[in-house]
């Protein structure tokens, strides 16, 4: 009942939010962005030819009518067609989304797997040498430009050491990909028992996932540390220590009290890292949604850019919703999640 009320309140806000985002993106690409008409028309285009293309793309209409037509279509599930690929944008996005999500999931998962324990531990021993180390490493992770990190990893582990495969996509060039079940080469090949493909997919995942893990671990360490420190200084811990409870129990208390804010933070991280993931996809020729979005922006493929942004917004909304919902469910005290 609490859950239902919460969901209802949330859902009421989602639609105007998404509408606003779509409107903003829509206007932005048309006013400020690339002009795809010249590119589609080619070098020998005459004015008549250019006008023809503009009409075909619906660009000769006033901006507001273009927007209304677009929104109307969106509500029926039609995100328009990509002018570059001529495929429906929705199909393009749905096909590539699992590819990016896989990267994001493994990357942030690994980052959290490293970051949360480290953050918790250094909170327990603030200013120890381990803490200092962790802080330096974390700073490093914060400051690294993504594109640079990807290239350097490729350079060191592929070019110099030859340990990693070339950054040429999700699977080796001569390996046949598994049939599509989830969209993840690794999972699908494991599900179908195709060990060669699984091995290739795994080895191609290592570098890009590591890059994302490094970048996501830094803020996770920092925030987990800060959150846990708060709890350590809080009443629950003071009471536990005063009662003489062993350190093990204290740590458990800290962990349980940190869960909610840490989880919320990791959720923020996931949504915030989509941009980073796009750059990693670009460097490793990953072929996912991020690369698609980047290409769309560069080429002025309006429908694709709008669809991409809409999808990202929806993704963020859903992630936050899930996290907040989980908090509402598991957190016995709060009547409203933060």
């Amino acid at each position: 009942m609490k859950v239902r009320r919460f969901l209802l309140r949330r859902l009421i806000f989602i639609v105007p939010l998404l509408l606003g985002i779509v409107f903003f993106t829509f206007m932005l690409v048309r006013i400020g962005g690339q002009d795809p008409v010249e590119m589609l028309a080619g070098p020998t285009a005459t004015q008549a030819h250019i006008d023809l293309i503009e009409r075909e793309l619906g660009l000769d209409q006033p901006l507001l009518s273009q927007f209304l037509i677009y929104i109307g279509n969106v509500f029926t599930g039609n995100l328009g067609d990509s002018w570059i690929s001529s495929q429906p944008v929705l199909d393009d996005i749905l096909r590539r989304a699992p590819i990016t999500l896989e990267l994001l999931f493994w990357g942030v998962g690994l980052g959290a797997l490293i970051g949360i324990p480290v953050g918790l531990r250094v909170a327990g021993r603030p200013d120890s040498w381990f803490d200092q180390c962790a802080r330096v490493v974390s700073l490093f992770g914060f400051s690294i430009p993504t594109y640079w990190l990807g290239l350097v990893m490729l350079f060191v582990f592929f070019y110099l050491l030859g340990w990693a495969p070339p950054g040429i996509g999700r699977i080796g060039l001569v390996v046949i990909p598994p049939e599509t079940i989830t969209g993840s080469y690794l999972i699908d090949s494991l599900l179908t028992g195709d060990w060669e493909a699984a091995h290739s997919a795994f080895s191609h995942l290592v570098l890009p996932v590591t890059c994302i893990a490094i970048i996501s671990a830094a803020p996770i360490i920092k925030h987990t540390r800060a959150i846990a420190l708060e709890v350590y200084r809080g009443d629950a811990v003071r009471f536990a220590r005063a009662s003489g409870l062993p350190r093990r129990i204290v740590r458990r208390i800290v962990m349980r009290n940190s869960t909610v804010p840490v989880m919320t933070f990791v959720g923020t991280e996931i949504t915030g890292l989509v941009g980073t993931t796009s750059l990693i996809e670009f460097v490793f020729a990953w072929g996912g949604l991020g690369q698609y979005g980047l290409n769309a922006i560069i080429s002025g493929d309006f429908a694709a850019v709008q669809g991409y942004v809409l999808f990202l917004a929806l993704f963020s909304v859903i992630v936050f919703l899930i996290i907040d919902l989980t908090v509402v469910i598991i957190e016995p005290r709060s009547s409203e999640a933060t």
Partner: protein
Amino acid sequence: MVGVLSRTTGVLGAAALLGTGLAVALPAVTASAEETLLVAATAVPEGFDGDALRPGTQNVVPQVYENLVRYGRIEGEDGRTYLDPSAIEGHLAESWEVSEDGTRWVFTLREGILSPYGNELTADDVEWSWNKSFDQQRTGNFIARVSNVESVEALSDYEVAFNLSAPSSIFLPALTLYVPGIYDSTEVRSHATDEDPWALEWLETNTAGFGAYHLDTLRPDEMAVFVANPNYFRDQPFFDRIVYREVPSAASRATLLLTGDVDWIDRPAVQQVVEFQGDDRVKIEDSPGRAMVAAWMNPNFEPFGDVRVRQALNYAIDREEIIDSVTRGTGDVAMSVVPPIVDGYDPSFFAYDYDPDRARELLTEAGYPDGFETELLYSDLWWWLEPFTIQVSSQLSEVGVTATPTRITGSDMRSRSAPAVRDMPFFVFESGPIILDPVYTLYLLAHSEGVSNRSDYSNPDFDALIDEARETLDRDARLALTTDAQRIWMEDAPWLVAAYPRTFEAMAPDIVGWVPYPDVHERWYDLRRVED
């Protein structure tokens, strides 16, 4: 995630995972009985129809769709094979005849040319393909108009006639272009529908030509795999398979070439080329370019209406310096609006050696003893535009001309240079012909009706020469006219001519056979791998 176990093993476990992953990551290299060429490019083409250009389409269409005629080949002084711009020979067509008045060309097709689908090339295919281009009203249609082609009709199985509105010297060279392509219309038509009579949708993800290669698999954003056409009418190519892989990052492409993981990369940037020089893991081939680095002056805007001003600016430029700094020493001084690789190129009218004194003299004569102020517009459309603009601006300031570099968007630049607009007095742009023909070049770039004449240059004497040349089929007579036209153009100096940057291809050291083409795309058919 409980207690001590989680913290340390969490970290250690992750490290172990990473280590294992790297340690067992083997490069997936398996020997294959067939020869495969691995190409790393910016993007997988999103369409295979020359009339519906998408990024990347131009790279692959010439491999699949071949033409009625082709350029002959000659050996250059450097021992390499070049196209001979003065010789056109039959390819899909065996021979041709042109009527007395030059308005009707009849081509006889070679017999027994089969597509990968097993259909034979007939005159119907040619007629269908040209009608498709006419209908699409795009590049193919433009080429047809420029060549005066009004209609195409199949006369028999192997004879096809082109009806021209007037004789055209551009027509035959234009037939070497990738568009209008010649399709296996039997196959393509089987995929047409009422709403899509030309099967354009099918053509976005399939090919059906008579060329050496054929699209086998397409995985968008990943790769396109082409296989040799088993029915190809000439000898089978060396490479049975071409894997055209999308690798968006230029740095990644370069790395892959250095490690030998790919055989060919698409369009290396000049900086990469310079770095690759001397590295024996990479072979760099170059050829004279066909697009000029230049600044265009619109005579409708003062002070560029005065020919003395335009000539003065040409004297004020140190071209060697520009070649060094902008193209890293890889360009050739531009001495004609017709590029050096085009038939009929004549550099003899170039008179603008670096001479700032002469520049000041001319400016004074024209009424600008203290120079003048203007804006030099540029955009991000090509890599060299900005460095070139800065160089020119700095060099011009030494003769008193203040040309302030002003950046506008690429789309602005294109729309402002459209025929109905053309309101930029002084700007930098790139343009070069894709047909190795001087008449085509001069018409496009400098005729008052030329589509690419973005600075609105107009000289009736020049126009008259080109109009006549367009209809003059005799090569000597035609070249006499184009030579005269080049003289007029150079005297009028509508552009601040600088250099023709060379174009480069970067490939694995064991790849040979590359022949430069005017559309700057290699032909996979030419390539071979040599064993050391």
